């Protein structure tokens, strides 16, 4: 899951079944704990004594068989309900002696709070969650006073819930229903049960209509679905390397897998590019002239596979192999235009794909990830580690190491660039502009690619060596430093090569595009050989060293950063080469395909899973960004510069005789203007593509839109902050109200002994109604409702009690008034509840307001002057609901106490 261990070490320390056992026991034994709102020492202390007394009471209470049973069956036994007392007067008596009573109605409020979300919200997910929360919570805390009646009630309740769910599911379309069932957070058996119910319901409904027709349609839909599943599984089978990917991901983790995903993604890019180039450029050329005009004295010698020169020189492999004519075979096909637009469209599509994948991955992995808090945590964590050792001299030393490492690595990059430059000059002096080279001459061309690849292989090793001496505070910084240095190196090498091609080769050779194409071909091929060597040296050798010679080093880990940079470099070569050698993607496909298996074998044979999981998602974003920013943009600007500014060679290639490649479009426009009827194309070209005003307007509009979006974003940010603050305030209000309730109960010192249980009761409540899994926004409404219900029930129970514990009641009128008050309070609260359901946003804020009012009022009336009856209170209905509920409850409590 979130982490992967090294080498499959089995550490028994993680295997803490014993602690889990203990935990579970304790959690089921001490059910009434965790009151988060009772802050402060006093409350906690009190709570713990209450806890003990509750356990004592449980032990002391003489239980009948039914109590034992319900205690055992509490996991499956749902919520308690009202009338438990009538059946057990003796127990009631006992309870009063032991000063402990488990409030029966606390069960009721839980059931309420759980049911609320599903009834107030019609939408599917909420209901699902309502159910699931109940299933999940299913009363870890047992109360001994369950009876069969409550069991039934709850079973009914659950069945209702299930029926509702089934009805909702039946209403959906088949496809949606299957997804909805899959998404239910239930175990498989429950899902199967729901599914069978839905199917039964559906078939019952259908059989009422036409039995035959229903059967038929049922069969049809079943076979359609099976067919769909078949297609899905076939598609999975067709997906490239699916099984291998899973194997790698399963054993080596996400970060290593991201390399292979990246490789596959690049491979797809190349396949697309190959199809486009082959389809629009090569096939027409082959149709027109299937055999290349190779001069008779050039033969295939074998070395061409490495160098790409000689025999290949005049084939469709390179720019030079294409003609500039307009084919009139079956349809008119302008080779120049095809060549130009295919490359241009491919580049644009690549850019768009890159930008989109970069943006989406940036959105999910950076913007949502809230980096500020992570940074804070990290800083405070590393503070501890660094505090002892960072004196001034130490930090100076660190700074010196950083500086020298950066200087060294930058000068290495610049040095390799310079050496490549001189090497290229040397090579140009020796090379001649002739069609047939000797074998030696041909082999000499391999010198530059060899040196370039060697540098790409060796210099990064030095960089990793530097990295060992630097002490970066985090692994991330270390990786970033490594990546930046490698990018610098590769950029400088490529820049020198490009400069050489555009300024030296373009002047010297008659068919210079093909020469550049050859050079790129050689680079791609030699790079491939060195990649193989690299995985041999980088992984196999260090594995051998790690296992045989120096066990201290251990089995190597797969270096994702280095390998991904190699891929990026390889892909850049292909992008640059696409203009000069349209079939280079074919070579690239072959290369990546082999590389995938090679790396997979090397990984499974030589490497171990990374010890740290790292931030694979963010690293991947960085890789895509790197691929886009220096490399793709660099390649595009190189190709664009070639197309706009350089003169194409005069005797070969599709653009021979033109001033620049872009001239193709102008020539085409002139041609269109003269011949065809599609004047609008010409008009668009002249008035849109070539007019500055158009671009000016476009940029203006874009800037305005960006500004508007920026402002909207700022507004939303503000709003998010306000909403967050509101949530926090509501939480505070909730705890405040609950505290007040507790204080109220404490404020009768003479009745303290009798009020121990209500206190406990109120303490449990936050636990209860927040376990409903409801968002805090309507938690307040729920709380009000629940309290009102409790008050009512208490009053009712009280009434009944007084009947049963004969002779103790003195003032029945008081009791009934308490009941009516509580009823009123409850009705108001319910009105609010329904309001809330009908219009969530406004009523939430209104409830918020009311709660604030209530709080203010409570602060004003700090002294416990709560005796006046709430119905006479002229306060607005909404704000008084809560307080009335509290009052009703309080009053009922008083009367309960007075009753004895």
């Amino acid at each position, binding site marked *: 899951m979130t982490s992967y261990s090294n080498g499959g070490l089995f550490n028994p320390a993680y295997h803490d079944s014993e602690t889990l056992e203990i935990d579970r026991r304790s*959690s089921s034994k001490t059910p009434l704990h965790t009151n988060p709102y009772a802050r402060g020492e006093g409350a906690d202390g009190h709570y713990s004594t209450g806890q003990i007394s509750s356990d004592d009471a449980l032990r002391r209470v003489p239980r009948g068989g039914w109590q034992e049973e319900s205690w055992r069956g509490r996991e499956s036994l749902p919520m308690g309900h009202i009338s438990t007392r009538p059946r057990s007067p003796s127990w009631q008596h006992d309870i009063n002696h032991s000063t402990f009573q488990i409030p029966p109605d606390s069960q009721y409020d839980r059931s309420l709070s759980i049911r609320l979300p599903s009834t107030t919200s019609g939408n599917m997910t909420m209901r699902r969650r309502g159910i699931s929360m109940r299933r999940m919570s299913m009363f870890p805390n047992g109360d001994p006073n369950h009876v069969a009646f409550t069991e039934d009630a709850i079973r009914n309740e659950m069945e209702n819930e299930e029926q509702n769910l089934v009805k909702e599911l039946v209403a959906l379309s088949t496809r949606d229903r299957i997804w909805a069932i899959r998404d239910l957070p239930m175990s498989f058996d429950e899902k199967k049960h729901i599914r069978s119910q839905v199917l039964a319901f559906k078939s019952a409904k259908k059989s009422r209509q036409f039995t035959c027709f229903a059967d038929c349609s049922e069969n049809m839909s079943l076979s359609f679905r099976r067919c769909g599943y078949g297609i899905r599984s076939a598609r999975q089978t067709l997906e490239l390397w699916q099984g291998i990917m899973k194997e790698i991901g399963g054993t080596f983790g996400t970060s290593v897998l991201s390399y292979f995903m990246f490789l596959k993604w690049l491979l797809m890019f190349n396949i697309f590019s190959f199809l486009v180039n082959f389809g629009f450029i090569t096939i027409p050329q082959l149709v027109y002239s299937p055999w290349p005009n190779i001069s008779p004295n050039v033969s295939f010698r074998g070395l061409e596979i490495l160098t790409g020169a000689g025999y290949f020189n005049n084939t469709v492999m390179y720019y030079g192999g294409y003609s500039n004519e307009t084919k009139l075979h079956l349809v008119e096909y302008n080779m120049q235009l095809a060549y130009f637009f295919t490359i241009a469209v491919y580049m644009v599509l690549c850019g768009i794909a890159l930008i989109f994948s970069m943006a989406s991955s940036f959105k999910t992995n950076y913007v949502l990830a809230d980096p500020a808090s992570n940074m804070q945590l990290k800083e405070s964590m590393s503070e501890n580690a660094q505090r002892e050792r960072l004196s001034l001299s130490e930090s100076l030393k660190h700074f010196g190491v950083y500086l020298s490492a950066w200087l060294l690595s930058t000068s290495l990059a610049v040095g390799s660039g310079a050496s490549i430059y001189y090497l290229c000059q040397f090579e140009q002096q020796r090379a001649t502009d002739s069609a047939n080279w000797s074998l030696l001459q041909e082999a000499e061309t391999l010198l530059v690619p060899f040196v370039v690849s060697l540098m790409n292989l060796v210099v990064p090793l030095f960089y990793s060596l530097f990295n060992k001496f630097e002490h970066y505070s985090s692994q991330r910084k270390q990786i970033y430093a490594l990546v930046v240095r490698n990018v610098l190196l590769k950029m400088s090498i490529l820049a020198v090569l490009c400069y050489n091609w555009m300024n030296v080769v373009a002047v010297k050779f008659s068919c210079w595009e093909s020469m550049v194409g050859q050079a790129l071909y050689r680079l791609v091929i030699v790079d491939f050989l060195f990649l193989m060597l690299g995985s041999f040296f980088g992984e196999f050798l260090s594995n051998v060293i790690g296992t045989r010679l120096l066990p201290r080093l251990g089995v190597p880990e797969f270096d994702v950063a280095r390998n991904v940079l190699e891929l990026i470099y390889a892909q850049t070569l292909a992008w640059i080469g696409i203009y000069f050698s349209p079939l280079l993607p074919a070579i690239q496909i072959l290369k990546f395909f082999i590389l995938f298996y090679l790396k997979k074998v090397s990984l499974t044979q030589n490497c171990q899973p990374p010890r740290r999981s790292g931030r694979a998602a963010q690293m991947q974003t960085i890789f895509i960004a790197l691929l886009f920013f220096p490399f793709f943009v660099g390649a595009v600007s190189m190709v664009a510069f070639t197309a706009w500014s350089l003169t194409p060679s005069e005797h070969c290639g599709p653009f021979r005789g033109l001033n620049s490649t872009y001239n193709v479009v102008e020539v085409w426009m002139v041609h269109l203007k003269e011949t065809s009827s599609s004047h609008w194309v010409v008009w668009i070209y002249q008035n849109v593509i070539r007019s500055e005003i158009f671009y000016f307007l476009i940029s203006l509009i874009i800037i305005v839109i960006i500004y508007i979006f920026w402002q909207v974003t700022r507004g939303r940010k503000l709003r998010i902050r306000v909403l967050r603050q509101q949530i926090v305030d509501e939480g505070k209000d909730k705890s405040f109200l609950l505290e007040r309730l507790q204080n109220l109960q404490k404020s009768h010192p003479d009745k303290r002994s009798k009020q121990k249980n209500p206190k406990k009761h109120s303490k449990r409540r936050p636990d209860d109604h927040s376990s409903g899994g409801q968002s805090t926004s309507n938690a307040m409404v729920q709380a009000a409702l629940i309290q009102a219900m409790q008050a009512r029930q208490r009053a009712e129970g009280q009434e009944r009690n007084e009947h049963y514990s004969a002779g103790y009641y003195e003032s029945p009128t008081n009791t009934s008034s308490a009941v009516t008050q509580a009823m009123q309070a409850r009705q108001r609260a319910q009105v609010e509840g329904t309001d809330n359901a009908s219009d969530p946003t406004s009523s939430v804020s209104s409830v918020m307001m009311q709660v604030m009012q209530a709080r203010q009022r409570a602060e004003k009336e700090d002294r416990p002057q709560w005796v006046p009856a709430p119905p006479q209170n002229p306060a607005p209905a909404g704000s008084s609901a809560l307080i009335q509920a509290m009052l009703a409850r309080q009053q009922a409590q008083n009367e309960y106490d007075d009753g004895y």
Partner: protein
Amino acid sequence: MGNKQTIFTAQQLDSYQDCTYFTRKEILRLFDRYRDLAPQLVPLDYTCQPDVKLPYELIGSMPELKDNPFRQRIAEVFSDDGEGNMTLDDFLDMFSVMSEMAPRDLKAYYAFKIYDFNNDDFLCKSDLEKTLNKLTRNELTEDEVRMVCEKVIDESDLDNDGRLSLEDFQTMIVRAPDFLSTFHIRI
């Protein structure tokens, strides 16, 4: 393929496909994996729904799980008896939730259950500490663990009750881009 057809009836396969994120082929493959754990226990014929449970020790020894510090919790959460002993249905259920097709909310729900060591429907401090210790393989000191837990609660506990409810957890998960790829077992 011919003899594999007899492992499940068509109806069974339909219900498996409807209730999990797997295709027929994957279900059969998972069945093979399940059976490979104990070929002598698991019959080749599931049409009559035999009552077979594999003990946790076997489930936890799968290569996909054996390096996972939470493997015991995962098995407990997904098993019917809560002790990690799994029937085939539990097994399929587990890998269905862990598959890449499962939505974020479902994964978050089960992740919450996995981290909720004391089964009280909240991630309280002790849960977080346990989680953190498992994740870091006890590399952090007590102080650091406490600090991280406080920080996590401080940041994600929207209703200020000192512990994380499922909603808190889900909002937290939305901001963790790695969650979907890490709460994932490829099999």
